[in-house]
């Protein structure tokens, strides 16, 4: 049985059907005029061979082509893209089944930050009363390592609400190179979580090694197709409207192998997309449709997610403002567009502008987590642990986020109101009103431990002091102490034998033997 996720009843919609149609038509027009600039020769040739108008751009520094994608190609590609996408998992019970027209939400981590935020709890003594000591969290940023990636996968494995794992950090150990980064990030993640794993690829040359690793874990080439334990995320289109050479070439090869891939675009309203909602929507939709079209032309039926990471620019720095309200609006619009095409959606929420965990982080992430979830995206990259846009990952924040999502999941439960239920409660009302105390408390107990009553906020302190961070930190360490199911010793041995570049220290069995 796959994971259930949470089915959103009556998903929230911001834009009308007519507006959807208008955006769709505007996107189709954009794909023809101005079309896209393509820096990938392979992509240009594919489009050309399928009837798109392709012309070399003479004045460019790098070889590139102007591509005008006719409406027919786009519509066919949308038709050919699978409407149900399965993302498998090492533990088949953790598989995710995403239907493009069903607002069933899966909560997934992300993204790939350079910075890992360590947490420390030094004690402070009250100036006016030496007997009063409090612990205040201090956050220390540093470059992320492969050990951090293992730790975050480990904790994410145990986070109840988290349905799948996108690699959280960019591994920057001294012995990590461009050549061995991919195999190590895939192995570190897959070895520490039995949930679905999605990642980008640093180097195309490593694709086959990564796929082979996944085949060894899944049980062979066919088994991997049946249970795709890995998937890829590619930002092949750089906004505005440019196919990037390396990512596009990587995307093409992923599609050739038929593995699931999120076709993602991340325009910034105000700089790389128009500041107006209609503008960024028409453009991002065109960019994603261009990617989907290319992928389906490469390999009809490749499972794809309509990926959207739109963001508004900050007015003070022109950096990304993930915490802005408009960012959530764009995301919800994209959820609707994907549902219009019946292609499962990869959406974004929870990314915030705040640099450390705290009130700003909670407010920004919770706001977007709630509103975007209510719109019913299938794959919600909801930024467990992410801070400062996409720059920082903090494990403590991921644990805090899990508590938010527990509330959200409970909130979205289907209401239990029916004839039988009403008959039971009417009996309770009559019985209680007839008692001297007129309290319903005795009826609480049968439901108290049945999951019908939402749990209290797990990091609530006893006194007036705010002990949220301290309690979440304690929880984080408990989760780190809980074992995870690693890849079995035989498969691990084969992986280390067949896949070049893996760091020996990632082999947990080897380490155990040595100790």
């Amino acid at each position, binding site marked *: 049985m796959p994971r259930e996720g949470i089915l959103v009843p009556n998903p929230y919609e911001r834009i009308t059907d007519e507006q959807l149609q208008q955006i769709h038509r505007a996107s189709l027009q954009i794909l023809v005029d101005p079309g896209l600039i393509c820096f990938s020769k392979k992509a240009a040739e594919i489009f050309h061979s399928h009837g798109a108008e392709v012309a070399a751009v003479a004045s460019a520094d790098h070889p590139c082509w102007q591509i005008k994608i006719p409406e027919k190609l786009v519509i066919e590609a949308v038709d050919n893209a699978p409407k149900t996408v399965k993302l498998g998992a090492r533990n088949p019970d953790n598989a995710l089944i995403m239907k493009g027209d069903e607002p069933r939400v899966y909560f997934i981590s992300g993204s790939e930050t350079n910075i890992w935020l360590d947490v420390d709890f030094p004690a402070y003594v009250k100036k006016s009363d030496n007997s009063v000591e409090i612990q205040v969290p201090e956050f220390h940023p540093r470059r992320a390592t492969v050990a951090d990636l293992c730790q975050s996968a480990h904790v994410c494995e145990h986070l109840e609400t988290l349905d799948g794992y996108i690699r959280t950090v960019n591994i920057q150990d001294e012995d990590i190179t461009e050549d061995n980064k991919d195999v190590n990030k895939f192995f570190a993640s897959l070895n520490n979580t039995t949930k679905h794993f999605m990642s980008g690829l640093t180097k195309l040359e490593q694709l086959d090694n990564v796929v082979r690793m996944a085949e060894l874990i899944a049980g062979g080439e066919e088994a991997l197709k049946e249970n795709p334990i890995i998937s890829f995320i590619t930002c092949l289109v750089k906004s505005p409207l440019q196919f990037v050479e390396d990512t596009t070439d990587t995307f093409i090869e992923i599609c050739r192998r038929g593995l699931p891939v999120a076709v993602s675009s991340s325009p910034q309203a105000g700089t790389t997309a128009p500041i107006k909602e209609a503008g960024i929507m028409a453009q991002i939709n065109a960019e994603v449709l261009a990617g989907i079209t290319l992928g389906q032309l490469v390999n009809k039926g490749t499972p794809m997610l309509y990926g959207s990471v739109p963001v508004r620019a900050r007015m003070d720095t022109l950096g990304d403002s993930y915490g802005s309200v408009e960012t959530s609006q764009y995301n919800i619009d994209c959820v609707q567009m994907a549902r219009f095409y019946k292609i499962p959606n990869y959406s974004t929420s929870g990314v915030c502008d705040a640099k450390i965990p705290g009130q700003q982080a909670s407010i920004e992430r919770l706001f977007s987590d709630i509103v975007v979830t209510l719109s019913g995206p299938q794959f919600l990259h909801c930024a467990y642990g992410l801070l400062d846009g996409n720059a920082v990952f903090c494990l403590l924040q991921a644990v805090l986020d899990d508590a938010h999502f527990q509330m959200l999941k409970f909130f979205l439960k289907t209401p239990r109101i029916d004839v039988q239920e009403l008959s039971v409660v009417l009996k309770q009302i009559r019985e209680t009103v007839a008692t001297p*105390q007129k*309290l319903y*408390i005795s009826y609480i*107990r049968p439901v*108290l431990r049945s999951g019908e009553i939402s749990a209290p906020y797990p990091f609530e302190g006893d006194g007036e002091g705010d002990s949220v961070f301290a309690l979440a930190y304690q929880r984080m360490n408990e989760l780190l102490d809980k074992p995870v199911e690693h890849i079995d010793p035989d498969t691990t041995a084969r992986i280390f034998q067949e896949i070049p570049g893996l760091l020996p220290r990632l082999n947990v069995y080897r380490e155990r033997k040595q100790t």
Partner: protein
Amino acid sequence: MTEDGILAQLKENVIQGRKNQDEEGIDEKLSGTRGVVELTRLALEKKISPEEIINKALTAGMRVVGEKYSSKEYFIPDMLASAEAVGEAMEILRPLLEAANVETKGKFAIATVKGDIHDIGKNIVAILLKGAGYEVNDLGTNVSAEKIIDFIKKENPDYLGLSALLTTTMPEIGVVIEALKDNGLRDRVKVLIGGAAVSDDFAQEIGADAYCLDGFHAIKVLDSLKRAKAS
């Protein structure tokens, strides 16, 4: 069943909060088996003394419940279910304790004062005090000072609990205390006050003996009043 077996079962049923055999506890396996009321009667039939029943089963069970509540394994509804079950057992045991001249924890009259009809907190306090072994007389809501004075004259309770939720009705607590003084009853009864509107400062201001934050606090306050009296 041995005496120890009955007392152990009784204690377990207190922990489970099963007043009688019709009630569900937390452990489904106990469903349909004897609850606190049936086991108390069985214990008496087997000639187990009321003191032993109280000490080895009822109080011991409530101690475990208190620990579970403190460790957040139990919630208020669990605590109340156990307290209610113990309250029922105490009703069965009380005549025997009185006949044997065994000193009980005391008589506690409780009321929401005149003008105020809020009683959730008052009712919870009443259940918890019963469970803690007090004989509780609940005078209800919107109770006038006259009615309270009459009751005290007639029943001579050791303690009087007065509750008010509203800032508009809290002065009525002071009115009751003044009426106690006017009737020469103030020294006969300890007055504990509670409710959302009142506070420790207010208790001192109007001459109450103690302010209780909630039912659990009330039990602690009563224990300390008892200790103070004993010393």
